[in-house]
């Protein structure tokens, strides 16, 4: 068996990895809640956002925090444009087309990032260097920061959807678009705004992940694991998403430790097992229509 320190260390890595997944998954859930589109390119938005932060904070010498803010604004604008120029036109098309479309965004973003910033990994300087000792265990500051930021953003988003007029309007337009139009909700603008918010979240996630994974054109694939986590929890519910992502994040380091042969696949096994038992995830968000 493992000594207790190792268990705690692996557990903490799991929690921080899970929070990172949750941070990415929030963007997926947001877009899904508003438009029922699953943006498979979200991981690539994150990668691209990370690079934009790098450009503003180091290329233009703004420093990390101002660079992050400017990058968020730029990416938010990009997200707004993606919706208003492309996604708006394809409402009501078959799901396969929409999936393949968002996957295509991923391809475009990845090659664009490669062309602009090169194909080799780069590092981003953040204020979260160094380590902290907690109860005899050393923890990386960047991992603690991920957990913190995730908690803050979750609370912010949750209260946005539950408390503000705009959040409620977004939920309404996602449940019945036509009815929302009739109620005078500016559905189009709201949906574009949701894409903007999701792109901002992706940028923040990219900046937070950069010290852990380094910036590379392929880090977008983390998005698939985040998606798996969100589905395990029950897509569309923010608490469910966090639960699922934490679950996957915690299981991963342990299974990699005990079964090195299936390194990196345990998340998908968990996903299949959970969906086999509970096809709608742990916290159910879909309802059968009463005929």
């Amino acid at each position: 068996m493992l000594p207790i320190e190792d268990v705690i260390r692996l557990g903490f890595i799991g929690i921080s990895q899970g929070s990172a997944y949750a941070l990415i998954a929030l963007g997926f859930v947001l877009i899904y809640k508003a438009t029922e589109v699953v943006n498979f390119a979200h991981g690539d938005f994150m990668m691209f956002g990370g690079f934009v932060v790098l450009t503003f904070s180091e290329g233009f010498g703004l420093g990390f925090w101002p660079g992050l803010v400017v990058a968020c604004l730029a990416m938010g604008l990009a997200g707004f444009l993606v919706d208003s120029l492309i996604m708006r036109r394809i409402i009501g098309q078959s799901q396969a087309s929409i999936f393949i479309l968002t996957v295509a965004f991923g391809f475009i973003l990845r090659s664009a990032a490669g062309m602009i910033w090169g194909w080799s990994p780069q590092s981003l300087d953040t204020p979260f260097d160094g380590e902290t000792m907690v109860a005899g265990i050393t923890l990386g500051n960047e991992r603690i920061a991920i957990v913190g930021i995730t908690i803050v953003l979750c609370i912010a988003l949750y209260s946005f959807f539950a408390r503000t007029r705009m959040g409620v309007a977004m939920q309404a337009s996602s449940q019945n678009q036509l009815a929302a139009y009739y109620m005078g909700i500016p559905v189009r603008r709201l949906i574009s705004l949701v894409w903007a918010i999701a792109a901002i979240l992706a940028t923040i996630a990219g900046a937070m992940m950069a010290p852990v994974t380094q910036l590379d054109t392929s880090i977008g694939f983390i998005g698939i694991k985040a998606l798996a986590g969100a589905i395990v929890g029950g897509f569309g519910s923010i608490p469910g998403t966090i639960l699922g992502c934490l679950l996957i994040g915690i299981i991963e380091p342990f299974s990699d430790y005990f079964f090195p042969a299936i390194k990196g696949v345990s998340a998908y096994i968990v996903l299949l097992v959970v969906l086999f038992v509970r096809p709608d995830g742990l916290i159910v968000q879909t309802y059968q229509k009463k005929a």
Partner: protein
Amino acid sequence: MQIIFKTSYDQDINILSKRGEYIRVTLLIVSMLAAPLFLDVYYLSELGLLLVYAIAGIGLMISTGFTGQVSFGHAAFLGIGAYCHSILMTTGVPFSVSVVLTTLFCGFIGMLLGRSASRMHGFYLAVATLAFLIIVETVIGEWTSLTGGYAGFLVPELQIFGVYLPEIWQQYYVDLGLTLFVVWGTANLLRSPTGRAFLAVRDSELSARSLGINVEWVKIQSFGISAAITGIAGILLAHHLAYLSPETFGVLESLKLLLMIVVGGLGSITGAIFGAIFVSLLPVLLSLLRDVLPGAISQQAGLEPMLFGVIIVLFVVFEPDGINGRWKKLLHFFETFPYYRKASFVRQKRYLKTERMR
């Protein structure tokens, strides 16, 4: 302009209903049969590969295009088919028996996946199949004693009823024969009650259920048949590749299949075939584009995926019915010659239908 007089009920379910279709299909089959006479070896082998992808596309079309169950994992069936067949052939099972066994095996795995898929919907299913694909790829890679792992696996030579078929044209005829069989079988399936149940489930699960269709069982069937056909494509692909490695059957291959049917046109057999043609011509097209573009852009690494992505976006936004839709519009233009109007194919304004209330 041709007017069809219906004189018997059978006419409603004929595979080919118009005179023009008969002529086109006959011409196509004859020219495919004659292809080895005037094509050289390289193009013939490319044409064979195109047929293989057409089969795989039809396989995916059955679950995604006809039953509406989006699958990101069909490359897994391609892989299972290829490996299962090669392993069986290596142990001395004859080709014909191995094809049947492999197809059944793929169908069985597909039904197992369909059993879990039948209770999921939408993108849960898409991601679950993606997870399935990643797991299968890892299993193939790690099960070294059976599959040779990442080192690869040598595919035995094509041999039917004890006769070796080493020439490209012989292999091409095997591809063509199986393609014709699959196309005919699928067309037949679609006019049977099972096939029409597929379409009903795609269009509305609720109304299908109200009409007495067992939706879960239909989805299981659809996945099983779809996986079996993709497995056949895997068998032929193995003989084309001659050397298998797990990475061949990864996420990118799955995306290629999905791209094929979306660009070809969802929900029709011709769409899958158009898609296969498109995917086979794409590399040629991209290299042509490279020549046209200015040097500063064409020298960039990663240009191919970028153009690939742009083409998909343009297709989905401007021609959602794919190449097949464009083809139908063209036919309609000529068939109804002076009467074609722009409004003939105008799209209705559509709203989002929520999936959370099924």
